């Protein structure tokens, strides 16, 4: 369980392996903020290997998206399973994020 970071052209892709929950949200936040400080502006968070997200995990994505946008960048999400899609829909966060069905689709046009 953890976060794997990969650079695809000029986009930083973060794989969330396992869960994004109150116990590990700070790790993701720190990784993305470090990269933002280093000059990265385009991010994709890939949930293909993610079991579930809790409200703290949703909150850290909101917070990161806001910080990335403030720096003129964009953070997109990819590969949400049906459970994760339901959480985004219930909280209306599906209206806030660009959510792609695949990593490739998320990278396209970013």
């Amino acid at each position, binding site marked *: 369980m953890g976060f794997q970071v990969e650079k695809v052209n000029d986009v930083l892709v973060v794989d969330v392996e396992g869960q994004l*929950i*109150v*116990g590990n949200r700070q790790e993701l936040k720190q990784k993305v903020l470090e990269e933002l400080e280093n000059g990265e502006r385009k991010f994709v968070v890939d949930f293909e290997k993610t079991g*579930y997200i809790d*409200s703290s995990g949703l909150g850290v994505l909101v917070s990161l998206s806001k910080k990335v946008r403030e720096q003129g960048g964009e953070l997109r999400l990819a590969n949400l399973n049906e459970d994760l899609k339901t959480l985004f829909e*219930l909280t209306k966060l599906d209206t806030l994020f660009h959510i792609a069905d695949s990593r490739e689709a998320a990278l396209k046009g970013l």
Partner: protein
Amino acid sequence: MASDLVLDLPSDLASIEEAVDFVMERCSGCGEDPRRLRLNLRVGLSEALANAMLYGNARDASKRVKVEVAFRGSAITTRVTDEGEGFDPYHLPDPTSPANILKAEGRGIFLMRKLLDEVYFNDCGNSVTLVLRLPPFRDDVEVDGGARA
């Protein structure tokens, strides 16, 4: 509440996953739709535990969180109680409103209420009860460790 399972947890966020996994395992034979267990009960219980540890007990390592689970013919009932002073759960901002949607916090109880069939608090607000109703009783299913009563 007559409980079939009781857990006494430290106020340690790292203990949430293992505790939730344990409850999920015990519920796995109850006849409920696996998705409702995996999504609705799992997320609801995780949120209740995180709230109890983060806000109720304010991460005070000396304070405990009690989890009680009852398997009955019609429902799985889970109660989470912390040692904090409680709060008013009935006047919380709507996290989906435009004024709040960009906030990082405030979605836990909202999700509990969306995902569980019933969510209610005790008078002071330091104990929350989550009810997941089960499909009509079948006498051929048992929860792990005992028949559905």
